[in-house]
């Protein structure tokens, strides 16, 4: 039996009540190495949990362990934890280089080590000449990078990222997600990423944890929640009706779906029939793939309609 490394964050019967509101209700989970997505509605308890792990607020009852240490006597554990807030938090007057050096020192690094690590971290997060200019003049994308850099500069074992792609345009979003993947894969730092964008979580995370109203409602490998259903979706650019007819002739039951055709629970033999029907109907094939479950399905609106599953 291989030894699994001890989990990095552990919550046991964690409860937090403040101002009469039960923010966390007897929550227990463990987060290990890798990139974990933290999902849940606003007010579901995610930021409360993060604050408890960072030792900023004490739990009402239960225990929280970060890197094996109880968060109540956790001041020095913060030297090995990083946090990237969602909100603006960068000083506009300082350059990224000076700011990052300073943050490294505040985390306990001696000045010369702080300076070197600041320079390296800026390089790893893609900030080059601009690092000597005041942060006030940076674009949103650059500011997000600085925010991430300050969370990493002291070589933490674990970082908490709160909505890391907020405000970024599509290119910036892709770059930030790539940086996050790099943080785990190349830097060896594990990540807990809180996000409302399911696509971000699906592209980046190995595991997810879902909160609702202060309780833990789901947790597990990402693939448990995404993954193929037994329905195959066929999209063609023309001759759809011909294709449907050709399929029926071969004994394959088809239904109409938005933009294409669906075939339920096919067995292996049906694929050849599909291929032959495509050729016969001269239908240009754009897509043939099983419908996938989407993370967003976890959050169907109370109004009842669920978002279209992605093919």
């Amino acid at each position, binding site marked *: 039996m291989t030894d699994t490394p001890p989990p990095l964050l552990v919550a046991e019967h964690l409860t937090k009540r403040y101002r009469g509101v039960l923010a966390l209700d007897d929550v227990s989970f463990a987060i290990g190495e890798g990139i974990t997505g933290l999902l849940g509605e606003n007010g579901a308890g995610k930021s409360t949990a993060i604050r408890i792990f960072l030792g900023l607020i004490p739990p009402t009852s239960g225990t929280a362990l970060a890197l094996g240490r109880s968060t109540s006597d956790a001041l020095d554990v913060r030297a090995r934890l990083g946090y990237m807030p969602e909100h603006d938090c960068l000083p506009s007057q300082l350059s990224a280089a000076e700011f990052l050096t300073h943050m490294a020192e505040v985390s306990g690094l001696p000045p010369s080590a702080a300076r070197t690590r600041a320079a390296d971290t800026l390089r790893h997060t893609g900030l080059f000449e601009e690092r000597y200019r005041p942060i006030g003049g940076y674009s949103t994308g650059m500011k997000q990078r600085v925010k991430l850099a300050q969370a990493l500069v002291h070589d933490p074992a674990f970082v908490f990222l709160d909505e890391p792609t907020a405000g970024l345009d599509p290119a910036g979003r892709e770059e930030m997600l790539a940086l996050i993947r790099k943080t785990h894969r190349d830097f060896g730092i594990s990540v807990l990423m809180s996000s409302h964008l399911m696509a971000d979580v699906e592209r980046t995370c190995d595991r997810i944890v879902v909160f609702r109203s202060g309780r833990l409602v789901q947790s597990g490998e990402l693939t448990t929640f995404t993954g193929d259903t037994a329905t195959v979706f066929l999209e063609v650019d023309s001759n759809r009706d011909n294709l449907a007819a050709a399929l029926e002739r071969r004994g394959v039951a088809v239904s109409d779906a938005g933009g294409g055709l669906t075939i339920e629970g096919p067995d292996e033999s049906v694929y050849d029939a599909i291929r032959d029907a495509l050729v016969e109907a001269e239908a*240009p094939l754009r897509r043939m793939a099983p419908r996938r479950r989407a993370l967003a399905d976890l959050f169907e609106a109370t109004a009842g309609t669920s978002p279209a599953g992605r093919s």
Partner: protein
Amino acid sequence: MGAEPIIRLDGVSRWYGSVVAVSDVSFDIRPGITGLLGPNGAGKSTLLRMMNGLAATSTGTITMFGEPVRDNPPLYRRIGVMAEHETVYDFMTGREFVLMMARLRQVARPAEAADRAIELVDLADAQHRRMGTYSRGMRQRMRLAATLVHEPEVLMLDEPLNGADPRQRVHFQQLLHRLAEGGTTIVLSSHILEEVEQLAGTVLLIVNGKLAASGGFRAIRAALDQRPYHVRVVSDAPRRLAAAVLGLESVEAVTVDPDGAIVILSRNVRDLQVELPRLAQSSRIGLRRVEPLDDSLESVFGYLVER
């Protein structure tokens, strides 16, 4: 099908000194949901501000319902605008805020209008709490209620879903669909392209101040037949398929993934779409999965931005 456009832009440019924020943009906006897309700094916010009359154009005209938007107070009653960043008054309750906007907008029966708007955004339970106690998503929804309270015919929303959780996002999409079906013209600026893809029938892509693409997303995609097109194919004989596929004129390159799928690069989508099943059939190879990798709005967008 020849419906009059609700908003028309004609040769619109806007510059600030030597900085050209918007350059010679012309398009029509019709009822329904139109997505306004573009990288940060491309000129979308400037365009939105000109479209609702807050900023003047340097050249060109913008008309709404046939009238010029600039310096046209009666027209503003028919427009609702929700900007990206706005401070709200923390000390007010949600209801007070919406009521205030209703009164500012000179709505005939403000209390009823406020009720309706708050109901629309599903915040009736929280309306009597101070906005300082709201979560980010709730603040956004209340701001949206305030934007809708005077039942505008045109809605302009700049990143309205900042901070909204998934459930709120779905709810919001349904709300927009309902409004659009009811005849409201909605212009929506957002960076979350997968949502815009689901919401907007028409998109406008602004790059460096210029209009890079407009219209239905699928039509735009089809019009870009010269862009590189990657298709990932899972089959029961990947290498044999790869070898065979290289014989096709429409194929430029084939990559083999470690997990056994092949990725075909082509510059001729139409031909490849027809030839692939044919080739598989004649080579007696079973196809399991065919997935275009560049089909999303995000990919089309990325291509147009890079161009």
